């Protein structure tokens, strides 16, 4: 009787262990050689993808594949493709993490649905897309393109060309320089410590806040429908301002301009001899310009 009980316990333990194997995450540890300027496509629909640039001509991937998914990777020379795909087509999967090291100067394309994407240490180009997840890019790259339907986007660094778009998410630009195109539907756009040479910032109902400077011959073009616009600029900035809000009010409080603030539905003036062009338009949002 005792022997039968022991056999039963052993069988139960075996079934639990084998069962666990079927739902446990599978560890990923793979690498391939690739050109320093390779084009790399990465698919990770549900989980987090972290891209890190390094000084090697190879791709190294670590992480975990969630149950019901398989990791794939292939490529050589200047092209590579990797990612997680569901074992059954159309089946929804959750979780999973990919830590991908790529040559710094590579061109990386990442597609996700619910997952988030993070990039750091790169100097090449990235084209990142997700539906509900967030995107974070740190560093100075040749080109940053990031799109999400609902997630937050954060780009830190003075990349010469930045294009970011989201629907309801927030766009945060830190120390952005060069040409920037940022667009949301209802989410806010916030630029901190900016030094842009050309920018178009557009929202429908989200507010826009720009803090920093603009190149001497640069252009800053902001448009919202109902979102408020706030500019925090050096008091000595040389720029032509063209501000108009149909249903709101434009208020300018740049001490260098005059003693008292300018106010009106439409305000046009030149500060410190001009140079840059600043245009802000809103249908019913408030427009405010402050000196810093």
């Amino acid at each position, binding site marked *: 009787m005792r022997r039968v009980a022991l056999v039963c316990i052993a069988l139960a333990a075996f079934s639990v262990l084998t069962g666990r194997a079927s739902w446990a995450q599978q560890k990923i540890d793979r690498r391939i050689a690739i050109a320093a300027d390779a084009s790399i496509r990465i698919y990770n629909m549900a989980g987090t993808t972290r891209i890190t640039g390094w000084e090697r001509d190879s791709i190294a991937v670590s992480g975990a594949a969630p149950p019901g998914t398989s990791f794939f990777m292939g490529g050589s020379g200047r092209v590579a493709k990797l990612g997680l795909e569901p074992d059954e087509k159309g089946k929804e999967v959750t979780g999973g993490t990919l830590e991908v090291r790529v040559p710094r100067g590579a061109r990386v394309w990442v597609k996700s649905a619910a997952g988030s994407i993070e990039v750091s240490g790169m100097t090449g180009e990235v084209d990142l897309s997700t539906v509900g997840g967030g995107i974070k890019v740190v560093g100075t790259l040749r080109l940053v393109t990031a799109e999400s339907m609902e997630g937050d986007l954060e780009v830190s660094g003075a990349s010469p060309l930045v294009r970011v778009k989201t629907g309801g998410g927030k766009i945060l630009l830190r120390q952005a320089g060069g040409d920037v195109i940022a667009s949301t539907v209802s989410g806010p756009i916030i630029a901190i410590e900016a030094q842009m040479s050309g920018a178009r910032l557009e929202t429908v109902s989200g507010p826009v806040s720009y803090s920093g400077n603009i190149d001497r011959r640069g252009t800053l073009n902001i448009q919202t429908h109902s979102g408020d616009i706030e500019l925090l600029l050096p008091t000595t900035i040389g720029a032509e301002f063209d501000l108009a809000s149909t249903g709101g009010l434009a208020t300018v409080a740049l001490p260098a301009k005059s003693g008292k603030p300018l106010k009106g539905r439409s305000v046009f003036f030149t500060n410190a001899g001009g140079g840059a062009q600043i245009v802000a*338009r809103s249908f019913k949002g408030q427009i405010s310009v402050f000196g810093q």
Partner: protein
Amino acid sequence: MTCDELRDRLDAYARGMLAAAEAAALEAHLERCVSCEALLAEAEPQPAGTQALPKSVEPASDLWPGIHARLAPRSRGGGRGRIAMPGWMLAAAAVLLIALSSGITAVLLRPPPGRTAAPATGALAPLEVQYASAAAELSAELERARGRLAPATVRIIERNLAVIDSALAESRRALAQDPGNATLERLVIAAWRQKMDFLRRATALSTES
């Protein structure tokens, strides 16, 4: 990229001869600069054969006697290539053309039931016709692909499109009350651009799913 730099490269871009990075920088500038965007339309690539043509052609020694001989009969009886038509008939044709194009515009911009739409004015009208037509195509494509999208994604798309449509309708109503207001016209165009961009992205999602 500045406006001057763009103008230097515009011809090369129109001919597809610009490096990818330069082309991307140029496109980024075009997206935010209306005056340079207008220049692009003028920089249409010339037919390939024109490059092989000589830079200048010397006329024959004395062409005038021949030209004069051919012009003389025309001044008396009217040229062969010219349409001779009484003034009232030309005026009637112009009125007919205007009525026809306005009719097409009205049909294309007809608002959905229950919603009032402002008539577009001046140069905005043809632009809106193009936007409305392209948006209708993309919406139809999106509707066909709806089943392939996750329900959560569909909700996100609908929510964002509702915000854009509401802003567009509000701007158009204001423009109807103040026709020709340049600021409102820009806002209407911006709303259309937002709508087109969002629809394009949503449609791309549905085709990739």
